[in-house]
């Protein structure tokens, strides 16, 4: 026994379902069938609308999750940038070069000298020598706990580079224990002028600077005399 289905406008309604599904597939999540007709086919139309509702909801949630994740990622990237920046700032801060006298630069080195820090330190010092025209610089390593061959090598290179720029470099603050250790390592630091304390280095530098001043004055007088003659 077969029952007859009660369906009105079957052709148009199937066409509409196809249209709506195509729209949804194309990304229009507001499209719904919303048929007014009540018959044996209405259940299917309603069910399809419900499915589209569910799908829309799920897609919205997924979009929201993705946005949240993207936000978090960009926040983490920002934090990472800040950390890197702070690290760089710290590097700069930990090698502050200052002009303490007419002609004298002081660079107090504190903490351990890895190659990155030494590089920054050396660049800062050399740049400051060029900027200020100072001819004496004091590198105080009182705050450096360990001087191994690599650190000694860096110190030697810094002193040599400073000399090439016309500045004499004095190293102060080598503790007796470190001095003994350097000797046992076999490194020859005699090419570097060293002073026990920062104070000794300052006194030496100021005398040196004064002598240079006097020399300059003398040669000025000599020049003036020449002009008079």
């Amino acid at each position, binding site marked *: 026994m077969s029952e007859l289905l009660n369906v009105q406008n079957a052709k148009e309604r199937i066409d509409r379902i196809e249209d709506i599904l195509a729209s949804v597939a194309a990304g229009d999540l507001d499209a719904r069938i919303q048929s007014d007709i009540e018959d044996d086919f209405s259940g299917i139309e309603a069910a399809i609308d419900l499915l589209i509702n569910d799908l829309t909801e799920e897609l919205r949630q997924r979009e929201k999750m993705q946005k949240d994740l993207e936000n978090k990622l960009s926040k983490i990237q920002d934090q990472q940038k800040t950390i890197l920046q702070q690290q760089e700032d710290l590097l700069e801060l930990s090698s502050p070069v200052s002009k303490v006298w007419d002609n004298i630069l002081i660079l107090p080195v504190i903490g351990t000298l890895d190659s990155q820090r030494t590089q920054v330190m050396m660049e800062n010092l050399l740049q400051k020598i060029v900027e200020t025209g100072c001819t004496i610089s004091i590198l105080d390593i009182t705050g450096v706990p*360990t001087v191994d061959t*690599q650190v000694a090598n860096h110190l030697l290179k810094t002193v040599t580079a400073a000399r090439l720029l016309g500045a004499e470099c004095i190293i102060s603050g080598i503790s*007796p*224990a470190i001095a*003994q250790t350097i000797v046992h*390592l076999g490194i020859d630091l005699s090419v570097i002028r060293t002073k026990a304390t920062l104070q000794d280095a300052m006194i030496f530098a100021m005398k040196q600077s004064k002598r240079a001043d006097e020399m300059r004055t003398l040669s000025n007088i000599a020049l003036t005399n020449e002009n008079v003659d």
Partner: protein
Amino acid sequence: MLEFPYNTDCDLLGKFKIDTEYDIVTVRQVIRQYAKDMGMGIVDQTRITTAVSELFRNMYNYAGGGEVLIERGEVESHNALIVTCMDQGPGIENLELAMSDGFTSGQGMGYGLPGTKRLVDRFEIQSVLNEGTTVRIMKWK
């Protein structure tokens, strides 16, 4: 892995990896603390710290890192701090040359190994090409 003959009973104080420059600094500080705890004076503390710094840097520079074993024990009736550095790097081709003052295969000063030997009370080195290098140093209290 290379092995040294052991005839002593030692307490293992620590085992560390050297992978970065940062590791060099932290493990070096650990060893300074052990030396201090054993009652070594500031000069000996500085010597052992500088010695291990040289060995760590060599492992870092030439072998891409390595491992450190810190021990304390009685060696020939001395109270000894023992540090063993092991790497699986390329090894050292000519040990005699590497141990001589001023020899460097890179841009160093070439005083790391011979200097380390002068800074400690016992220095042993083994190296096999393409297998690695092990250096053991001891400092008496």
